[in-house]
């Protein structure tokens, strides 16, 4: 089930990009105001840790983002009796609302920043709401694609609807839920950075904003590079966990 091809291609592209970057900006092009040389980035490492408090910034953002898949999984586990049934009733993905939902997320974000200021709990609540809504919309569209023959055959063998939803439908949806949580995990990084940049007092978003204010492009580039590595490694770790939990190929949703 678990597909690492995206990560493999990303690693290849990143390796080539790094190689070209080093050759161009370290050895060929003169120093410039846009992209720093690799040597100056290495020189900035000390400043990043001592003056910008990089560890606590990335630690906080990573923790907030990491809580999304964990809480998302718990949410699915707890509501496995009810969620597919509840969301069978209305398909949001077919409405206009579906296409414009990102605008409502931006509005919600601005509203929460205005209301709670720079609070990491408010950011967590915002990320949870976005992830939760996205997951429910996704479940509503995926549950329709499950082969209905499961219902008919198992019902004919004496299983109740509740048992079928709990023990079969939730299990059939699991690989897709994992795939969605994985996607949400990556998207949450984007949302978290925007949130922190706007609220501007903690986390990686604030750090990047500060570096931008001081026109410290070495710090900005370096923090982006380290953040990409952290996202890559944590995403890969998530895929490994998924592989351990789901070892079968779902052929039911086509």
């Amino acid at each position, binding site marked *: 089930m678990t597909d690492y091809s995206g990560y493999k291609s990303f690693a290849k592209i990143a390796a080539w990009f790094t190689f070209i970057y080093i050759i161009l900006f370290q050895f060929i092009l003169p120093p410039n105001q846009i992209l720093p040389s690799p040597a100056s980035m290495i020189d900035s490492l000390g400043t990043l840790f001592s003056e910008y408090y990089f560890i606590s910034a990335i630690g906080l953002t990573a923790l907030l983002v990491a809580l999304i898949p964990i809480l998302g999984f718990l949410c699915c586990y707890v509501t496995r009796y009810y969620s597919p049934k509840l969301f069978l009733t209305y398909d949001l993905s077919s409405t206009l609302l579906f296409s414009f939902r990102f605008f409502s997320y931006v509005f919600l974000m601005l509203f929460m920043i205005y209301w709670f200021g720079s609070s990491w709990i408010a950011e967590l609540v915002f990320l949870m709401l976005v992830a939760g809504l996205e997951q429910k919309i996704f479940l509503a569209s995926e549950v329709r694609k499950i*082969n209905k*023959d*499961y*219902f*008919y*055959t*198992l*019902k*004919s*063998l*004496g*299983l109740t609807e509740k048992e079928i939803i709990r*023990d*079969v439908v939730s*299990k059939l949806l699991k690989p897709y839920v994992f795939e969605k949580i994985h996607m949400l995990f990556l998207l949450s990084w984007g949302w978290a950075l925007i949130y922190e940049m706007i609220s501007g007092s903690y986390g990686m978003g604030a750090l990047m904003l500060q570096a931008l204010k001081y026109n410290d492009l070495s710090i900005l580039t370096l923090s982006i590079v380290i953040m990409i590595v952290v996202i890559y490694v944590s995403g890969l770790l998530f895929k490994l966990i998924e592989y351990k939990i789901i*070892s*079968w*190929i*779902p*052929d039911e949703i086509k």
Partner: protein
Amino acid sequence: MKSNKVVLEAKSLTKDYVDNTGYKIRLFEDLSFTIHENEFTVILAPYGSGKSTLLKILSRTETDFEGEIIKSDERISALIADTPTSLQWKSVKENIKFTAKEVSEREVQKAIDAVGLTGYEDFSPHSKSYGFRLRIELARALAKNPLIVLIDDALDNIDDEKTRFELLVKLRELNKIYDKTTFLFATNNLTDGLFLSDKLLLMSKHPGKIIERYEIPLPEERDASMLDSKEFLELRNSILKRYKEANDKFLTVKI
């Protein structure tokens, strides 16, 4: 041993549905038939005549219909769909025990042996063939000691002729082993249907109706040689002729 005991009687079954454009369409009408204990009954019908819906109605998983179904006892009517529904994350044995929790280990093993999965008890259906998964579904149904097993064109997905024929023989064999259970098989494949049946109901479509009932005079024991026998071919041709008379020339039945 065939008996004259009626296990299931369908009286004037009629089913309507509303299509995407809002038109009410009659899928089938006034279907009446009886099924006798351990008599392998086949419904031969073209695509779109409502075979799958009829089986769902007979299994009581579809309740929106007109007419009446009378069963001889309260045992279940197990449905096997035309797409695989064995659970991929469970082993063969777990699949059976999942729906047959109350059934003894002996009965579960009997079902596994009967469908030919001895030695595969701990294998999972994940990435296995349609034939393997169909055997699991048969065992899962038979372990529950059903009154009737309703099979909906389940061989349609199996392209390999050898596997397909092995399963046809297996179905006849299961009908013999489980002599208190009756099999009803719905298909659009004339050869499969004729090979399996003791009784064959021929249906037309738009709306679905039973146009002919055949008592099949073929021997109990059936094998590959029967497919080329004069008796089999004559019977097949006469059913095909009747089918073509009753249906539009564009409608075909698999030979």
